[in-house]
């Protein structure tokens, strides 16, 4: 939702990055204000996931230019854990399996770390158990999730629910959800999207990275951005997503090249 009194959360200017010497991002400009929902769409290999991971501080990418401010602070000088503590959440496209570590233990440590950061009291295992079970209802999750190892042997849908559960626990200011819809059947998609909608407030913001318009039937974006070749080549409202669904990405790319040539 676009609010009159919103404040700027994230401001990205001219962001460039490489991985293994290959240029992936070629100058991204992107602004997110509180209360907004953004969708970043685009074909495979357009740099969407790279952009998402880079904002979270993934070590595999090398920054080559540009600036990123989060609530006015230089985000790029913060370690990944500091970015998380500052309120940036990345919902992983492929959530990582951690054998031997119980989900409940992992969730509690993550939760308490953020509580401490925010100057609030930690929850002991019993208090946390009550708290997390309440949140799990939101996502229609089976309580046995808590006893299983983090993401180990989870189905695609279970992994994604677990990501949104973490978002619900950590209450980030900016949630970047990287292809949260992939691997979900229609029912799971409805549940996950319902969870995300309930978490959206006027004080936080959500960035959805997705291939398909399908997800956007459930979570309605305020802005839709098309990424291609490491740049955002078009920005529009929610109708743009519908248009992309019927016409594909090719025309946007052609249009962009024509404009670029005209400007040059």
């Amino acid at each position, binding site marked *: 939702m676009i609010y009159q009194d919103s404040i700027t959360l994230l401001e990205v200017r001219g962001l460039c990055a490489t991985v293994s010497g290959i240029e992936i991002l070629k100058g991204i400009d992107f602004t997110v204000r509180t209360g907004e929902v953004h969708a970043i769409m685009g074909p495979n290999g357009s740099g969407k996931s790279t952009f998402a991971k880079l904002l979270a501080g993934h070590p595999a990418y090398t920054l080559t230019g540009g600036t990123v401010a989060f609530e006015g602070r230089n985000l790029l000088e913060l370690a990944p854990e500091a970015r*998380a503590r500052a309120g940036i959440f990345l919902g992983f496209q492929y959530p990582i399996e*951690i054998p031997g570590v119980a989900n409940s233990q*992992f969730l509690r440590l993550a939760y308490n770390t953020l509580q401490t950061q925010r100057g609030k009291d930690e929850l002991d295992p019993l208090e946390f158990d009550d708290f997390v079970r309440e949140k799990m209802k939101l996502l229609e999750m089976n309580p046995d999730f808590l006893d299983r190892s983090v993401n180990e042997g989870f189905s695609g849908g279970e992994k994604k629910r677990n990501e949104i559960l973490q978002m619900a626990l950590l209450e980030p200011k900016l949630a970047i959800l990287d292809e949260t819809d992939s691997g979900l059947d229609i029912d799971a998609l409805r549940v996950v999207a319902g969870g995300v909608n309930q978490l959206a407030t006027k004080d936080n913001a959500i960035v959805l990275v997705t291939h398909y318009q399908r997800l956007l039937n459930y979570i309605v974006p305020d802005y839709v951005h098309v990424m291609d070749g490491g740049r955002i080549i078009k920005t529009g409202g929610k109708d743009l997503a519908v248009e992309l669904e019927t016409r594909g990405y090719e025309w946007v790319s052609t249009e962009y090249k024509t404009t670029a040539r005209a400007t040059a």
Partner: protein
Amino acid sequence: MSTALQNLVNQPYQHGFVTEIESDVAPKGLNEDIIRMISAKKREPEWLLEFRLKAYQHWLGMEEPQWPNVRYPKIDFQNIIYYSAPKPKKLASIDEVDPELMRTFEKLGVPMHERAALAGVAVDVIFDSVSVATTYKQKLAEVGIIFGSISEAVHEHPDLVRKYLGTVVPSGDNYYAALNSAVFTDGSFCFIPKGVKCPMDLSTYFRINTQESGQFERTLIIAEEGASVSYLEGCTAPKFDTNQLHAAVVELVALDRADIKYSTVQNWYAGDAQGVGGIYNFVTKRGLCQGINSRISWTQVETGSAITWKYPSCVLLGDNSVGEFYSVALTNNYQQADTGTKMVHIGKNTRSTIVSKGISAGHSNNSYRGLVRITPKADGARNYSQCDSMLVGDQCGANTFPYIQVHNNSAKVEHEASTSKIGEDQLFYFAQRGIGAEEAVSMIINGFCKDVFQQLPMEFAVEATKLLGLKLEGSVG
């Protein structure tokens, strides 16, 4: 490997200090005279001297084993001190223990009084080679349990020692066992009589102190019919540049329905980050399930030593007897570990379980080597083995050498193995949830070792968890 990970695994040894206590030290080298001197110093009976001399003759004819997957310069056995004893001899109570020694224990974080009182643990302290303090002995004696140094036991219970010494690990069993049998200076002796359940965990803290003194501990534990005991062994050593040889022998005997649980946490000096110095730990540990329905369980957490060569084993002689081996072996920097177990099934319906967790970091090399042998008469024998390896970084190595010999068609033997790696992606996942690399590694490692830690007595499990954290912890950059 990320710098965070690198810093994490480069943690200096925290227990490196030398206590200054006068020692009664033998000249370097090994020959019959040295053995006679050790025996005489300890006022040993003739049969024990003969035991030693026979072992020495065996040893002279043996070759140092070459098969382990470890590399080290040749050991000069004539350049080792085989006997050293702290000057203060016999003490009536723990208050008389050298304050310097007590401070050493403080530094190690093992306040003995507190430990004994709070945890209800009897501590038989081995300092270099001679016992200097024994607590709770009286209390144990009331239920007929004998717990003390083996030197004492030789004088006070000669028939028991003579009956069992060398019956599980014969003096000519292997190169290092033979060496130990010839020159062992002290160790623990524990006897649990028929039907007695030991009311507390028995614990020994070992500590190697005299520079270049070989340590040759000898431990003998006997549980009679229906008896049970849980024995804890924890070790740590000061920092030295020269390698120290340690060749201990531990023998366990379980009679009908007896139950022995032997737990070890080992944190000896492993050498510096370049692999200089550190303890050579060549140990023979073996338990004999002599009686029917008996059970012997080994649990070890091996984090120290430059080289570990150790295979706590079970000989399952009695029908329905059970052998267990639970192990965590962590190697870092240039440490080498070749460790595992042997389960020899002889009796009918014997069962064994092996759970081994190897963690390699730095440039270290960690091998599991295990033998499961089902002999022709062992009808209905069963074994389950699980060997998991975890790699931290990309400069280390992990190997698994399982030997399975089945000579009975009714046997059921299962073996599972896995290798995993703490990767950048896992650490990033933790980081994205606000959790730093140190805590993440500690959580992953503890999760990996959970099946083994569950086997440890409560206080020991806490200590072991802390120890693994320490070994991998560091300033995260």
